[in-house]
């Protein structure tokens, strides 16, 4: 997107828009960034790997998704999880090769239960049933 901004400034400066600068199709845009294209990865987060097995009794870990590369749509105050997921889905439909689907649906997540110690060695079994997604899309 920073690239776009620079082009935007160029455009302001010159009276004639450069050929294709604004007319770049999303596919072209992404092609030019092939090596940093937005990709979705799966990762298993092991609490043991984090060295937390002395206070998290169960589960052993959990599966997560994340993306790296230049995702087209930065989440900010103007775009909430729902809009982001919708836009990400639309762009994915137009360019499924380079733009992954949204990382999660903004409304419903898996319910998980976690069993862990607190500082006083009390044990807490907490059910996280209605988890609200704070951020969505491809992050």
């Amino acid at each position, binding site marked *: 997107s920073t690239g776009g901004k620079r082009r935007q400034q160029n455009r302001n400066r010159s009276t004639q828009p450069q050929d294709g600068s604004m007319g770049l199709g999303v596919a072209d845009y992404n092609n030019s960034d092939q090596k940093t294209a937005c990709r979705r*990865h*799966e*990762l*298993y*987060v*092991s609490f043991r*790997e*984090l060295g*937390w097995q*002395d*206070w998290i*009794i*169960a*589960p052993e*870990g959990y*599966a997560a998704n994340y993306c790296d590369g230049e995702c087209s749509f930065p989440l900010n*105050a103007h775009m*909430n999880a729902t809009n982001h997921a919708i836009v990400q889905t639309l762009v994915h439909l137009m360019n499924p090769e380079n733009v992954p689907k949204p990382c999660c649906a903004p409304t419903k997540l*898996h*319910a998980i*239960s*976690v*069993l*862990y*110690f*607190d*500082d*006083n*060695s*009390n*044990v*807490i*079994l*907490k*059910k*996280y*049933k209605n*988890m*609200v997604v704070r951020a969505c899309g491809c992050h």
Partner: protein
Amino acid sequence: LDGNNEVHPGFIQRRLRTHAKREMQREILSILGLPHRPRPHLSHGKFNSAPLFMLDLYNTISSDEKSQVQGMLDGYQSTLTTQSSPLATYQETAFLNDADMVMSFVNLVEYDSKLFPQQRHHKEFKFNLSQIPKGEAVTAAEFRLYKECVSHTFHNETFLLKVYQVVKEHSDREADLFLLESRRLWAAEEGWLEFDITATSNLWLMSPVHNLGLQVSMETSSGQSISVKEAGLVGHDGALEKQPFMVAFFRISEVYIRTAR
């Protein structure tokens, strides 16, 4: 995760870089709503009675979630009573299903001896409920004691076990007590004893100054006061997996209004 919560073998398991690790820790702690990483005082790295009991609850919930997911897939409903589960009674499993949090509390203090010559043997137990998050209400609470068989010492003897809530303490005489439950036990009995302390726990939660703990006393059939240890009740010097503890089931009593973004 596939339909029954198993991790796909296809997931890459790779070491996190320290920066990613720190980010992941921050994210997980924020999801768990914890200000920092807890530092429990674990004895010998082994689980004592409360974590073992809670792990059983966790496995019950997880297997129920799996069978519910499976049930949805196959269209059948699971029933959650397994004889091996300590929560075999329907009521307790209903509490577990309804609860959004369950907490076990470590016993903070134990007195085995008589404070005043004329006082009967008793054992005191105290639990710190200050860690309970605001807005959580106790739906059920149990005090659990393990009793071992002592028939080799008290052949054919029965004991009368009494559990009291300490209402007021005095420096120069016995505390004021409120009898919660009395139960007759055989010397040969062995296993976990559960006592319903839901009302007491709610009082402690609403008015912490009244949290003066519990007292347990035992008498022989002839009414003679006897030390609870002699009668087979396991205390802080007994086996880790038989330590006394309290467990409480909670349900959020307030509805959180999510701020609009």
